[in-house]
């Protein structure tokens, strides 16, 4: 059994890689399930040994990848508290918010050889839950768009500014309009606990979407 600290950046990077990979798949799947984009741009791909829907559109893919590239340093240092995929209507008011709350234990302990396969199993359950979430959610109005919000701890955004300069991908502090949701309804979807990360996914839905 190995116990590593946060200073062991290699392991922190591994965890950040795993989470960012998962978030990329989850964002694509949310866009597919919630019909933010027409289903024609999606194709079936394999992740965690199960079929998932990923977009083929290059600009959409690039946007999602750049977003997560900037989020990754925050996850490495455990500064990212929440990553939210917000679906907004035409007036840029949020109608739905898929919130991934992420927390990592300060002492990462690898307790078993099957840790990664166990984590894969848990992430697979998340994917499955997103696939069937439309059973508990109301339909969205047409013409929706999406954005990604990151809630950070303390003043971690200063670190992000360095990454922005490199990547030329500006992050701005979110408007109140984009953050505040009227009459939100909370629907928990899935929770996972493992040695390397704790995550829970819930959906905040506006009571009246149309």
């Amino acid at each position, binding site marked *: 059994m190995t116990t590593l600290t946060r200073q062991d950046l290699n392991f922190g990077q591994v965890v950040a890689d795993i989470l960012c990979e998962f978030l990329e798949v989850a964002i694509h799947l949310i866009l*597919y399930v919630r019909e933010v984009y027409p289903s024609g741009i999606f194709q*079936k791909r394999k992740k965690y*040994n199960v079929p998932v*829907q990923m977009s083929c559109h290059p600009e959409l893919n690039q946007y999602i990848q750049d977003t997560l590239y900037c989020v990754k340093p925050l996850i490495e240092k455990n500064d990212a508290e929440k990553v939210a995929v917000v679906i907004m209507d035409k007036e840029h008011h949020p109608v739905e918010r898929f919130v991934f709350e992420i927390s990592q234990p300060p002492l990462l302990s690898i307790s078993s050889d099957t840790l990664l396969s166990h984590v894969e199993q848990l992430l697979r359950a998340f994917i499955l839950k997103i*696939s*069937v979430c439309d*059973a508990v959610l109301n339909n969205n109005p047409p013409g929706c768009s999406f954005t990604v919000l990151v809630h950070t701890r303390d003043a971690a955004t200063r670190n992000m500014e360095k990454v922005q300069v490199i990547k030329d991908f500006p992050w701005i502090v979110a408007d109140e309009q984009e953050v505040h949701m009227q009459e939100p309804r909370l629907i928990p979807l899935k929770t996972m606990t493992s040695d390397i990360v704790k995550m829970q996914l819930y959906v905040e839905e506006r009571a009246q979407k149309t």
Partner: protein
Amino acid sequence: MDELYLDNIDEYVNDQDKIVTYKWLSLTLGVHVNTAKQMLFHYLDHKRKESSAQLNATYLVSGKFVDNGQTCHKVSVVKEDKLEDFKSKMSLIVSVHVYSVQKALLKDSGPLYSVDYDAVKDNMKNCSRYSAIRCASAVPVCSPELQQTREIQQSPTPEPENKKPGMNGEANLASKPSTKPQRGIMGMFANKSAPKNQDGGKDVKPEQKEDAPVVDLHKGKPDVKANPMTNFFGSQAAKKVVKTVEEAAQSSFSAERQRQTSPPEEKPAAAVELPKDTKKDSRSKTKRLVDSDSEEEKMDKKKRRRIKKPEPDSSDEDVIPDSPQRMETREPSWSPKKKVESVSHSHQGNSEMKTRKRRRVLKSRTFLDDEGCIVTEKGYESESYSEAEDDVQAAKRAPRNPVAAKLSSSTKPDEKRSHKKTSANANKGTKQASIMGFFQKK
């Protein structure tokens, strides 16, 4: 069938928002797949009649399909709303049954696979336990048996090689009649592994009086043989007789031989090595015993030699042909050490069974110096050993001091290790022995 399954399915579908496939249901509830299909059908029918909740279902349709003049057998999973349309296109419908029931309207079939993935993975070895597809000739090969036969084939070849150096080393030292029959046994051991087991059993049998019938029955069964050995040692703990100790030494010696030769007999060796380690590889164990210089081995060696001494020469503690000085060392503390060894034998029944190996042992040599004082020096010498450690430690603890100091220091550890009565005897014994030793040297 009882109605409980309806509640179960209702809980899965409505409360947990799961996709319930017939395969997942059969693995979860432990029922045949056809039973699971019927359960899902009844549940769907029941819920549709109640019209309480919005449920979606998928169906599996299999039958003959004519495509561009070619007839093929087609198996498809279709959504409920497309079922009738699909059925009309089939030329012959062989089977239609419910595939899954869920609350969500599935956009594609990906989640259906994901649902079954973990359930099948958890039941990988018997995922077809409830399946309707059977093949009598499809029997999996028993892999543990394969591995065992492979291990048995591999392990006998290195063991005879390792045993031979040990035999040679101990043959040099062995000048006692007790070792001769054991050497003969060793010769028998060197030939084959299977006969070794039997020979070892026979050899052990006359020596292990208590366990003779048990050992006889347990020929060729190493695991069971381990128990008689450990029982033997456990019973030895109750007896504090020198002869019994001697028998134990002899039997442990032969048992060691036996263990070295027979690869499956790992447990007796493990029981012996309990104070040190619990290595299961007898080959590595013998190597380690050869190379190690631990106090336990010293004690084993000293103890063994001391046991043999009383018979040929009661006055001398240890008769070692290559080290007469050591005899003098032994004499002063012969009797207490014997008692210590018997007590220690009781305490460390496990450590009796040692292989006879040569090792470097810290020995104390007592001699008369210029001033007329008896001085004890410690030095490393190679000796054969096979006994427990206490005796070696009692000898080892002798410092570079006059006799009195030596006696006191040697008795202190004795007191720590042995009972109070024994330690009192040890004190008296050491004092008398030292006086005798003083006179003899002059």
